[in-house]
């Protein structure tokens, strides 16, 4: 059985092949996919989602281009790269901290959109700060 299963969000406006690419990257970040894992076979993806096989080929080619996957003729496409080094287990503690922070934000009166906006604004602040350090 393959490690992950794809799903499509027709309302997202993101091209189908890119949704597949993003889902693989997401699965890599969260530890659902690891080095050496085989991606679902093209025929199986197509038979599940009812999409054109060329779309899956395009997605897997893009993953190869990004250095995350490699095709082996006759065998399938395998994960050869990683994104982020924190394994699934190591993320549990961070997830608990995030949940506590979200409760605190709710208590302070923020709704989900407000929480997301605050998080991304803080993320961008942190990014600017670390770039500033690197530059000086």
């Amino acid at each position, binding site marked *: 059985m393959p490690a992950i299963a794809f799903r499509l969000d027709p309302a997202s406006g993101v091209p189908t092949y890119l949704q597949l690419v993003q889902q693989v990257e997401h699965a890599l970040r969260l530890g659902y996919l690891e080095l050496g894992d085989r991606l679902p076979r093209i025929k199986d993806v197509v*038979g599940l*989602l009812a999409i054109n096989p060329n779309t899956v080929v395009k997605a897997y080619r893009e993953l190869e281009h990004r250095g995350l996957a490699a095709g082996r003729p006759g065998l399938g496409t395998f994960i050869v790269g990683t994104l982020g080094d924190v394994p699934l287990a190591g993320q549990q503690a961070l997830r608990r901290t995030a949940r506590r922070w979200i409760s605190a934000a709710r208590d302070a009166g923020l709704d989900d959109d407000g929480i997301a906006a605050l998080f991304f604004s803080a993320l961008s602040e942190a990014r600017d700060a670390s770039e500033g350090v690197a530059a000086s």
Partner: protein
Amino acid sequence: MNVLEADGLGKRYGRSWALRDCTLAIPSGHVVALVGPNGAGKTTLLHQAVGLSSPSAGSIRVLGGLAAGSAPALERIGFVAQDAALYGGLSVAGMLRLTHDLNRRWDEPWARQRMRELEIPLERKVGRLSGGQHAQVALTAALAKRPELLVLDEPVARLDPLARHEFLAALMAAVAEEALSVIFSSHVVAELERVCDYLVVLSAGQVQVAGEVDDLLAGHRVLTGPSVEAPALLGRLPVVRTHLAGRQAHLLARLDGDSAAALPRGWEVQAIGLEELVLAYMREPEARAFPGPAAPDSELWEVRA
């Protein structure tokens, strides 16, 4: 190799032309969606391709130059008609046996395996199948002859959303496994983007749009800006469709990302989805688009008014 080539193809019924001066070259290896309003000539074109009727003008060839309807062509083509003519009184097994007898190439084990996977009992009478099962039996019968080209006339029009998904999933799995080209006509524009990679739009018996979906989408942009500036742009750009409001204008134009960069300040450029593109062309029956290698005499587009 082209799976379908029409040259000046015309078909007349009495005094009216169902197809007029159709010129088209569809390369192999694609899932082709054939769309257009009712009466645009979709069924007529598909019937010409499988030799169910002969041209009144011009010519049509299939699978690298074979005469449409000739024995060597028919052997390599699978066809599912609009109301897939299966015999209601026959059992599924009897239906498969009959189709087998009518075709030289036939993969019986595969057909029976498919029926098992779909949990369709072989002894069930065809007339007692659900709409979705009926469509799957017709598709299986067409695929079991191992065609190089599969022609489907409105295969999903009468199916509920789940049956439609399962039908398209089976079709796409067949495309993934075999070197199979598919041409299907459809009214269901919303689902096309997921399954087709080549688009043909017919309008009043003529080819209005033909090309690879990626090329078509890359070659069109929606431009949004002040209405007062729209007339000036109309003169400079190949605009397919204009939507003018009091202050704001939306223009669907043929141009790629690079040339869009040269627009006046204040104009927003957005990509377009396949459904919106198809609807725009259907609303503008005079507009034409033939991107790709079929248009050697211009850089990007052959525009025929």
